[in-house]
């Protein structure tokens, strides 16, 4: 069985500071890894994904995450956050195998609060 652990439920930071949201997963097979973001009063949106290839993946708004197989981690980072990054961030994993390949197992989420 797969599981995802997001180590911080809330992360407060000041604007322009760097941030890291931590995610660890457990799986006995290869996985796909994702970060989804949920802005206030909106649905979940895909932020970035790791399917294969380069272990460092980037989003269009400056976030990046690195797949570390030995550490079973997929931490999300941004060197300088903006007020508009305030949202809840969910790490998720799915299996490339079997009939339910698209089923996502989510972590509990991390609320990022960016203060001026």
């Amino acid at each position, binding site marked *: 069985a797969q599981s995802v652990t997001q180590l911080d439920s809330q992360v407060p930071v000041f604007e322009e500071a760097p941030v890291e949201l931590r995610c660890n997963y457990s799986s006995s097979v290869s996985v796909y890894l994702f970060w989804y973001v949920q802005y206030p009063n909106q649905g979940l949106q895909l932020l970035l994904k790791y399917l294969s290839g380069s272990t460092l993946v980037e989003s269009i708004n400056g976030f990046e995450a690195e797949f570390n197989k030995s550490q079973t981690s997929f931490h999300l980072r941004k060197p300088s956050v903006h007020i508009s990054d305030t949202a809840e961030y969910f790490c998720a994993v799915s299996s490339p195998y079997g009939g339910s*390949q*698209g089923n996502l197992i989510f972590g509990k989420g991390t609320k990022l609060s960016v203060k001026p």
Partner: protein
Amino acid sequence: EAGVAQSPRYKIIEKRQSVAFWCNPISGHATLYWYQQILGQGPKLLIQFQNNGVVDDSQLPKDRFSAERLKGVDSTLKIQPAKLEDSAVYLCASSPGTTGELFFGEGSRLTVL
């Protein structure tokens, strides 16, 4: 391109009553999912459809929850009778493939009193 549409956005019912949620996925997306998100937790898969067939409903409480996908497009999720612990946001998502790139609707928030 229109996103995933869900209705109603909010619903308040008494326990033991019934409720239904509707979802219209993005046009052309063969895969449709219903997730349950309880406050303070991540979304949990209830059921996955591929076209109008069920792929995975292992976590659907079938004694009270039912779902169908009509003609491989729209879907409804029904709860009957509702319990207090069913209070949650019900998220519908669709996907063009099977790699986990899901497009979510805004969700339907259910409060059971």
